[in-house]
């Protein structure tokens, strides 16, 4: 990808090829130094040109939280909306304007606490957008309260004796809500993050990405135990469609199914071979494998990252527009005069 300094370079056919710089807004980015959001922003700006979508057709909608600032830093159309409600604006926008590419930027509190209901329904409706959830297991903007993904017993200013709530697994929720694209990635693994963003952007349907993000001020190191560069190969499971579930620096650990449960095995020990392992199928029609993967977490299991599920279903806009076309095909384009005169009329001379 070429980076130009003088603006987008036209290529054959008169199409303008955009670059990362075209997507950088002139606002000074104000996240805390060391915040994982910088990485997410950078990779988002980097992949945006690859879709070949004109800048003016891209909209970023965010909720409230540190993640909510992201649209201001993207040189596209953007809407910093209210807490938890970004998916609702996205649904209205996509329904009225199916031609636009819509991204929803949210956080673990915005999406799963106040926004939980809208999360469920936008996924269920398969509204064609990509939802990037910055999951830092804390409420950062309001300075450090528990979130729906915080661990049981987490001590914060609002839970000084430890949280009495159990966390939810966002990927399981997304799968339960019938999301057609479910993936997890990490803020620090930039190449994986970029690839995941690109796959999600290309998916025609509701795409949900959980980004394990580090809030270095209010919840530093929440994921470090397995995302740290020198341990991640041993503690994360990089999913690839069609490949067996193998991980580990020596590529000698795997996941097989024993009854209904996943089981960590070592290839070569106890007669275990690669043939015994589960093979990843991200396009499986049913979500059973994806559900199992969504329940696996450190330390019992390596943390699966990548695309858990990707299936094709008609999107909300596809179906809404199809009904409009069907209605027009059945009775012709709507005639206002006929609608006004509906029912029984009479004339006064």
């Amino acid at each position, binding site marked *: 990808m070429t980076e130009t300094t003088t603006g987008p370079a036209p290529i054959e056919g008169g199409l303008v090829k955009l670059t990362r710089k075209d997507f950088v807004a002139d606002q000074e980015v104000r996240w805390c130094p060391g915040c994982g959001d910088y990485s997410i922003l950078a990779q988002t700006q980097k992949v945006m040109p690859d879709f070949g979508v004109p800048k003016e057709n891209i909209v970023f909608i965010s909720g409230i939280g540190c993640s909510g600032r992201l649209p201001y830093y993207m040189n596209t*159309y953007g*809407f910093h909306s209210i807490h938890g409600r970004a998916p*609702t*604006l996205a*649904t*209205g926008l996509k329904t009225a304007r199916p031609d636009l590419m819509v991204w929803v930027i949210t956080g673990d509190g915005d999406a799963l606490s106040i926004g939980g*209901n809208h999360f469920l329904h936008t996924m269920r409706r398969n509204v064609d957008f990509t939802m990037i959830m910055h999951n830092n297991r804390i409420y950062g903007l309001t300075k450090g309260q528990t979130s729906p993904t915080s661990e049981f017993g987490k001590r914060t200013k609002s839970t000084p004796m430890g949280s009495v709530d159990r966390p939810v697994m966002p990927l399981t929720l997304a799968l339960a809500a019938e999301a057609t694209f479910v993936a997890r990635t990490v803020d620090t693994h930039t190449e994986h993050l970029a690839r995941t963003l690109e796959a999600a952007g290309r998916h025609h349907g509701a795409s949900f990405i959980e980004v394990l993000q580090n809030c270095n001020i209010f919840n530093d190191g929440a994921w470090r135990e397995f995302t740290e560069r020198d341990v991640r190969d041993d503690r994360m499971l990089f999913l690839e469609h069609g490949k067996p579930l193998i991980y580990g620096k020596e590529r000698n650990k795997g996941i097989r199914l024993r009854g209904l449960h996943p089981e960590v095995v070592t290839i070569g020990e106890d007669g275990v071979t690669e043939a015994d392992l589960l093979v990843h199928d991200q396009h499986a029609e049913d979500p059973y494998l994806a559900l199992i993967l969504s329940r696996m977490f450190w330390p019992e299991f390596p943390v699966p990252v990548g695309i858990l599920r990707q299936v094709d279903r008609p999107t909300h806009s596809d179906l809404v527009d199809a009904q409009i076309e069907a209605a027009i095909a059945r009775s*012709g384009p709507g005639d206002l005069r006929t609608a*006004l*005169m509906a029912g029984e009329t009479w004339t006064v001379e």
Partner: protein
Amino acid sequence: MTTTPERIERESQLLDRVTIRFAGDSGDGMQLTGTQFTRTAAVFGNDVSTFPDYPAEIRAPAGSLPGVSGFQISFSASDIHTPGDAPDVLVAMNPAALKTNLPDLPAGGAVIVNSDAFTPSNLSKAAYASNPLTNDSLKAYRVFEVPIGTLNARALEGLDMTSKQADLTKNFFALGLMFWLYERSMDPTIAWIDEKFGSRPVIAEANGRALKAGYAFGETTEMFHTTYRVPKAKLPPGTYRNITGNEATALGFLAAAHAAKRDLFYGSYPITPATDILQQLAGYKSFGVRTFQAEDEIAAMGSTIGAAYGGALALTGTSGPGLALKSEAMGLAVMTELPMVIVNVQRAGPSTGLPTKVEQADLLQVLYGRNGESPMPVLAPATPAECFTLAIEASRIALKYMTPVAYLSDAFVGNGAEPWKVPDVEDLPDISVPNAVKGEGTFLPYGRDPETLSRPWAIPGTPGLEHRIGGLEKLDGLGTVSYDADNHHRMCVLRAAKIAGIARDIPPLETFGVDEGELLILGWGSTYGALRSAVEQMLPEGKSVAHAHLRYLNPFPANTGEVLKRYRTVLVPELNLGQLWFVIRGTYLVDAVGYGRVRGKPFRIAEIVAEAERILGERGVTR
């Protein structure tokens, strides 16, 4: 039934206005009877006004009190504005209907009952200790006992249908009888029956026979000595149809989208009494109307904002409790200055209140019920037909001034019906506004039009105008996030000025009655009918009264203050405990008198007259 050889002595009485209330079981077909009578009266040329009274329960047991369904119709030789304070005649198909509706019938009124339904079983279901037809309890009324069930069954003898099916047609018998009593032709209904039941000749035959049997019964029985004639009213020429407020609201926004040359988006959540609007708009897909049944009220509002952001003519519809849920999002709409309409079909509150009953107690909520200084224009239609024109007007203001607009309807105007002169599509105003396009220099998302103070509408998809908006305070002009103290003050003042400036763009407040004098009756919303009728009644008596009715509640029409000054006393009757009253007093420093009733029912003309006369009396005024 053969005609009797002797002619029965009868007289025909001329009346200016009649109000009939049909009441029966949910299964007695009273809504159909009422709408057929209405149509016939309207086609004949009377002015009509109707109001249905639906059962409180979805499916109450047959014959029980919560299952009573009613329909009131008032028809007249002159212009009428209400469905009538009280009925002149009550048609009660069973004891429960009689029990529920008799208290509304004035002494001397007529009661026509289906005597077949007055069985011990039905009487006990209606909590009657003894049969009112045989004890003295109905002696204040003129009671006509008609064995409708039996006579109807007899008329349908020989037809291939069960006795249950035959019984279902007895509402046509009652209709036929009423047609005879009020000298109406059966022809429109017969034509309707033939058209609706063309594929079911037995049913068509049965309904037709029932109708004619009812008519013939009136003709041949000795029970009725008088028939009544209500002459035609002088309605302006044109094509008319009967329309309810909710129907007119839906059609109004469909027309507004046409007039604005934009696609219509409606995001909504089912809630009584607004659900009809969603269901009607969902039927207009061939117009490109996109309706969205959201998962909750907040999602409905969010989707409306998203659609507006995308350039659609966006609206949402709800009732009081839903409006409360939408408050935060409405504030976002105000801050992002996007055009949209928020329809509130008001009902009795607080909280869940009385979902099917009328009230107008959400005014203060739409004016002030959001955090911060969050001004929003407010409109309120006065009649069912006006719901159409005001829907277009609300859209016009939303688009021109780049603001959400509140549209306050209510359960009475929403469910009530009146004749509506259907406008020509060519006569609809052009309310379209342009989308912003890239021009010279830096784009200012929060730059202002010098006249309207509205900001440019740059919709996604427009090259070169990429910008970000949101709920945080904006820098005047550039529209970036700004925490500057003076900027925040300036923006709040600007937003308020933009809304206040709309006053230059709306019609002045008109008065009906004396131009200046003792008493001005000032109202808003669905109380129009009762207030106008009250003043119409008092003027010929030489009373110094006038009626003014606000359609614009924020901002008020520019001349409102001046109008109020022309009268010694301003009376504000409202179906709340004093909301417009409060705002009028605060805005104009006038010692307005309130008359608030929250009974879940519309005002009666008589009570407005009584209150007006009480005030005039207090002031020592006899005229």
